[in-house]
């Protein structure tokens, strides 16, 4: 999973990653024996964890829900880590390079309010209903039809996303290290199948916590050294201000403001409006992802009690607010610090430009006309464009998405580079593992059990879960090769998430907070909402000019399309739910206990000192969140 729409929305779309395969160039780095040892130790560790946890994953509750034994810290770190994939890191570092700190919206308003809402308001209903999955909640609230729609949508999305993740990792390893594509796919899929198949969700969660530590250990050094070299915050700001116009075409100091220039689509480099950021991103997409996407919610459902389940997203939100330090900052630093081999400042470009200037044989550009046209849209200096066209060996083109790996190569020597690469591999693998483990749960509980075999024993369902992991990995490998050979598919796979999540949010919110919402309304709201959202996507995909209609402005850019499409899909589904509910008979209130606000008697929690109370920590998060937005206004 790419996380909160990151790859889908990240500029320089990672959807064009496959095109990079055509770009024959030297890898960015070569690992030394010490680096290879660091990577190898990671693989040994995750497989050791899988074997060790096998003995603790014998019942279905243990295998699919990690025994519901996770502490708030483990559930919280796993919750935020499941979203922190490598494509997320690389994609948003690239976006920061292009758009400045506007990209931070996807970490702050695009995450924090929703995480707090999940912990404080929604988690009691998920937790008290003892559901195994989000489709499972839909089953309890709206019946089997709504559950089946959600289950099939989740299962399809997760397995395809796992394949995309696998393929993306292979491409990144190919571009950064020169590794063979099939080698990367084989090694990562065997490792994931082993440790998730053996240890189930517990193993996936352990790996995510491990990954979280590795990402910080491997990536944090880059902004630290970068800030030293840039001369601190003041130096970074001065250099960006001095070079921004010539390098990016962006006027003024837009790179340093979160909100100031969002009053119109044309005033900021991202081409978004604050209404889209607040309502589309901050509500429809963010709440949809963080409160209903089973991949992340499953981590919190594994908490050992309700208080831990409520604390987990709040703990996660602290770390989420800090992530821009290792993602956004390296992107900004790359803007002023990256250099070409000849010492001139390196300018990154979109992957479409890199692909257009890909080589035929040797270092020559295979289609000079297309390359020249693509480069003409960039701010690359004319002399450098001529060098690229002439195939001068040192005149390399690198995409925005390579900002983070390039910064790693710039600063990290033997051992440290291995750690940075391990952090990327861990991010990819935990993304795969997260999707595969969630797929296994949805397949077993929401498809196999209700629709194929209702009367199996507990051990039978564990076996089905284990087999579904193997099958899931096999299908993921197939999806990875499919994407490799049919590049356009990646766009559709990445869009699945954004198409599905906003209607699901509408249905779950009405189900959880409106007693009058009926079964048929839930089913139709979800189904028609998905159809509506997919139609909007296809409209813009087939007729790009329709973007102006969807985002309500001719100045809107693709980033705006996603946030507004989610908003319209949410509103459409909400209207369907309300309209159909008014025409159909509601369930008696007695059937809604544990499912709906106002019809549920929530368990009383033991009183704790204020410093252990979730509301205290949530308040602190709110204060920091508001302060950061004011500071970077």
């Amino acid at each position, binding site marked *: 999973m790419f996380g909160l729409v990151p790859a889908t929305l990240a500029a320089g779309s990672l959807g064009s990653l496959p095109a990079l395969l055509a770009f024959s160039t030297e890898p960015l780095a070569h690992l030394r024996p*010490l680096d290879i*040892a*660091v990577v190898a*130790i*990671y693989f040994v*560790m995750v497989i*050791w*964890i899988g074997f*060790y*946890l096998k003995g*603790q994953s014998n019942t279905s509750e243990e295998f699919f829900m990690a*025994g519901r*034994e*996770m*502490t708030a810290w*483990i559930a919280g770190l796993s919750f935020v880590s499941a979203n922190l994939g490598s494509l997320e890191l690389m994609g948003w570092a690239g976006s920061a390079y292009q758009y400045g700190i506007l990209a931070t919206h996807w970490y702050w308003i695009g995450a924090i309010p929703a995480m707090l809402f999940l912990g404080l308001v929604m988690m009691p209903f998920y937790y008290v209903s003892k559901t195994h999955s989000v489709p499972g909640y839909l089953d309890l609230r709206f019946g089997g039809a709504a559950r089946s729609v959600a289950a099939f949508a989740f299962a399809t999305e997760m397995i395809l996303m796992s394949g995309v993740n696998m393929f993306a990792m292979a491409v990144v390893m190919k571009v950064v290290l020169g590794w063979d594509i099939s080698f990367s796919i084989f090694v990562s899929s065997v490792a994931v199948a082993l440790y998730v198949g053996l240890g189930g969700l*517990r193993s996936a969660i*352990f790996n995510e*916590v*491990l990954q979280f*530590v*590795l990402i910080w*250990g491997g990536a944090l*050094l880059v902004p630290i*050294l970068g800030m*030293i*070299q840039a001369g601190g915050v003041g130096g970074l700001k001065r250099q960006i201000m001095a070079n921004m116009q010539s390098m990016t075409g962006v006027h003024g100091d837009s790179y340093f403001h979160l909100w100031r220039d969002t009053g119109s689509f044309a005033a900021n480099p991202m081409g978004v409006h604050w209404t889209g950021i607040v309502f589309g991103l901050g509500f429809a997409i963010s709440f949809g992802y963080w409160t209903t996407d089973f991949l992340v919610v499953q981590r919190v459902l594994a908490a*050992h009690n309700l208080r831990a389940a409520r604390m987990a997203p709040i703990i996660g939100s602290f770390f989420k607010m800090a992530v821009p330090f290792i993602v956004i900052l390296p992107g900004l630093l790359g803007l002023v610090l990256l250099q070409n081999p000849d010492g001139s400042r390196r300018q990154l470009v979109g992957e479409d430009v890199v692909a257009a200037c890909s080589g035929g044989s040797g270092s020559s550009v295979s289609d000079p006309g297309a390359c020249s046209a693509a480069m003409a849209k960039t701010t690359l200096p004319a002399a450098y464009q001529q060098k690229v066209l002439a195939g001068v060996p040192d005149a390399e083109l690198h995409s925005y998405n390579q900002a983070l790996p390039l910064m790693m*190569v*710039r*600063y*990290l*020597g*033997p*051992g*440290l580079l291995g*750690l940075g690469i391990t952090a990327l591999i861990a991010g990819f693998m935990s993304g795969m593992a997260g999707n595969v483990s969630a797929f296994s749960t949805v397949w077993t509980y929401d498809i196999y059990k209700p629709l194929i075999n209702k009367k199996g024993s507990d051990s039978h369902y564990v076996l089905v879960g284990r087999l579904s992991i193997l099958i899931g990995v096999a299908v993921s490998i197939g999806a990875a090769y499919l994407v490799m050979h049919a590049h356009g598919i990646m766009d559709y796979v990445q869009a699945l998430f954004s198409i599905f999540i906003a209607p699901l949010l509408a249905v779950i919110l009405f189900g959880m907070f409106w007693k009058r919402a009926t079964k048929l309304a839930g089913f139709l709201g979800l189904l028609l909402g998905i159809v509506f959202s997919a139609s909007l996507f296809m409209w813009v995909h087939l007729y790009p000019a329709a973007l102006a209609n969807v985002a309500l402005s001719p100045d809107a850019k693709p980033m705006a399309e996603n946030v507004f499409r989610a908003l319209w899909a949410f509103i459409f589904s909400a209207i369907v739910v309300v309209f159909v509910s008014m025409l159909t008979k509601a369930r008696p209130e007695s059937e809604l206990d544990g499912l709906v606000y106002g019809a549920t008697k929530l368990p009383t929690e033991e009183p704790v000192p204020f410093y252990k109370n979730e509301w205290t920590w949530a308040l602190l998060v709110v204060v920091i969140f508001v302060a950061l937005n004011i500071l970077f206004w």
Partner: protein
Amino acid sequence: MHGSKIPIWFFIGVLLLAYGVMIFGYGLFELATGTLANVQLASLHAPVWWGGTLLLLGVFYVVKFRPGRVGK
């Protein structure tokens, strides 16, 4: 973490310890021989202080969460 004999923090400690030993060791080698890696700011000897930090964190987690001590 309940229900498991070895907590995740111990595994993390082992990993950080191993990485710390390797990277810190390489940093000491660089210091001793004066051969610096071909990267920016190599003169700051990041492997020494970053590797040392990983090593100390690793030792802390391994000792604090070693098997048999959990729950005490």
